[in-house]
């Protein structure tokens, strides 16, 4: 473990830039902390924090100058690895037919600075979806291979966080290049740094670091243990797959559907949701055509359209599809939960629907079988 002083933090930006990375990280825009291109330390939301609750998100000033003193906002890294709108290929008329050209742009190397542990888990989930099966999405893969992950350990979880329940945090453990813990002790402001890969080691070697002294590890452990104990929410995930598979007709689905606006905010904000649709376009001359992929949501009526009718006509059917997919069928599909406990869907739901409360309600009202061993 190494120490980087706050007044040297800009060196991390320099080194990443010199290594050819476009740095992406948290920045304050329109009263929210979002991920975007960062020029330097001054673009970070220094001295800001956030407050989150079901249907509520608000930024406010802190009484210190922490650079990472908030949790996750409305955007996630997904938009950089799997863009909301992306060209898949283009086709050009030629003779009686046409020729198709794959979209082969080589994306820029990106460094994600400030990735939270739940978000590392979300990236690992999307890696499985796009690169782990019988088909590989070359668009995702090309971007993903060129990403440097600099994680930040979470010291102050907020009202909708439940990474502990989902086993994804608050400490960033695997699948990263670098991890940071921000420490503020009165006047002293510094970071603990660890590398998690050869690439991370290279970056570390170019920073003005000090060795951490004994005892300092304890301070970090205490901080993160404190975070563990202050999760805003909790979800009992025991046997959750069976719980949802066994309850497709539970009355709670009707209750959720009464509140749900089918607005799709939850799926857009969720860092693991991956559904997409395509758009075929052609130009006015009819000589050139393109196929674009766009984020889609199981909350839209057209999502399940087949000739003769939409399969999921009711909000109940759509909400049940979303939540059952997240927590149950995802496990069968990808060997992992589709929920990493980041809380975005709770904070950004205009109706304040809370996935942890929905699970609780279904669990609480079980037919007799739940009691049986």
């Amino acid at each position, binding site marked *: 473990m190494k120490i980087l002083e706050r007044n040297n933090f800009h060196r991390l930006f320099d080194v990443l830039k010199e290594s050819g990375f476009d740095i992406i990280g948290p920045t304050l825009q329109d009263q929210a902390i979002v991920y975007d291109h960062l020029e330097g330390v001054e673009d970070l939301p220094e001295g800001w924090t956030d407050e989150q609750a079901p249907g509520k998100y608000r930024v406010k000033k802190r009484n210190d100058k922490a650079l990472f003193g908030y949790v996750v906002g409305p955007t996630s890294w997904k938009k950089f690895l799997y863009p909301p709108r992306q060209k*898949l*290929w283009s*086709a050009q*008329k030629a003779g*009686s*037919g*046409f*020729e*198709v050209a*794959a979209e082969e742009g080589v994306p820029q190397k990106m460094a994600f600075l400030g990735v939270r542990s739940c978000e590392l888990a979300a990236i690992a989930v999307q*890696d499985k*979806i*796009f*690169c782990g*099966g*019988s*088909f*590989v*999405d*070359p668009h995702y*893969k090309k971007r*993903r*291979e060129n*990403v440097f992950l600099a994680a930040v350990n979470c010291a102050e979880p907020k009202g909708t966080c439940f990474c502990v329940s989902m086993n994804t945090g608050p400490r960033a453990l695997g699948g990263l290049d670098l991890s940071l813990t921000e420490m503020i002790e009165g006047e002293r402001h510094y970071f603990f740094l660890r590398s998690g*890969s050869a*690439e991370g080691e290279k970056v570390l070697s170019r920073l003005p670091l000090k060795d951490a002294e004994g005892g300092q590890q304890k301070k970090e452990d205490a901080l993160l243990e404190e975070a563990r104990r202050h999760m805003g929410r909790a979800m009992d995930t025991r046997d959750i797959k069976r719980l949802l*598979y066994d309850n*497709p007709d539970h009355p709670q689905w009707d209750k959720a559907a009464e509140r749900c606006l089918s607005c799709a905010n939850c799926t857009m904000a969720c860092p693991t949701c*991956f*559904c*997409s*649709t*395509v758009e*075929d*376009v*052609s130009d006015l001359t*009819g000589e050139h*055509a393109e*196929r674009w*992929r766009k984020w*889609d949501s*199981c909350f839209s009526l057209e*999502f*399940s*359209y*087949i*000739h*003769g009718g939409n*399969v*999921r*006509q*009711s909000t*109940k*059917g759509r909400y*049940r*599809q979303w939540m059952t997919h997240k927590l*149950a*069928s995802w496990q*069968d*599909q990808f060997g992992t939960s589709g929920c990493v406990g980041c809380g975005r869907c709770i904070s950004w739901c205009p109706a304040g629907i809370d996935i942890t409360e929905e699970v609780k309600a279904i669990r609480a009202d079980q037919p007799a079988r739940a009691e049986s061993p």
Partner: protein
Amino acid sequence: MRKESHLVEETVDPMVPRPFVVRESREETRDAFTLTLEPQEANGAPAFEPGQFNMIYVFGVGEVPVSISGDPRQPEVLVHTVRAVGGVTRALQKLGPGDIVGVRGPFGSAWPVDKAKGKDVVIVTGGIGLAPLRPAVCQILGQREKIGKFALLYGARTPKDILYREQLGQWRSNLDLQVRVTVDNATRDWYGTVGVVTILIHKARFDPANTIAMVCGPEIMMRFVVQELIKERMREQDIYISMERNMKCAVGFCGHCQYGPNFICKDGPVFRFSDVRHLFGLREI
């Protein structure tokens, strides 16, 4: 996930279609037609198994899933029978010899023709559902001696909607293939059975304890057919159905075709009924 990881460096893009030339477009019924396609490049049409489907792209219009309906023993061409119902399928209907379409595939699971060896086979289809089963019929007829009794039961809306009329006639002349056709609404020139396809099931000869059933048609029709087959004492694990859902990518990325934990494009479209029974009865799944 760096380049040196387990992933191969050069991934083929499964979203990019290959150009195929329309060799023939043949009208089957008032709204269904059969396209015969040949690859534009020299490297041949891909081999396929009965029950699999392709994504067919019409320039600038869109792409839709369509089952392969040709004879697997003639792999040099791709044959698709399509019912014109909307944007893309109507655009396909307008194509003629020499026109180009994009093709991706084949995708998905297959009818269990191999599992049928030594057993009876009963095929129950409705409407356009005969198209995805034609390759299975062809394959079985090519190894007829390996199968016991063989029944093909087909329901169409009206006599005018019967697909592959000529071929059904040829098949019927095989003394060892029971072909039965029914229509929902008869016209004056129809002397055959009238009524839904389920009424044909108890007329067919097969040994329910030793039969493989393959069922394809609208979901509601499959529901009644499966019920009837079970009433005839068939076992759920011997019944296979082919499911349909909206599909945008066919490779498990778009999420549209989810059916419970299954992606119909990868885990289906052909499912063993006993594997999906718990989903089959649910609404809005």
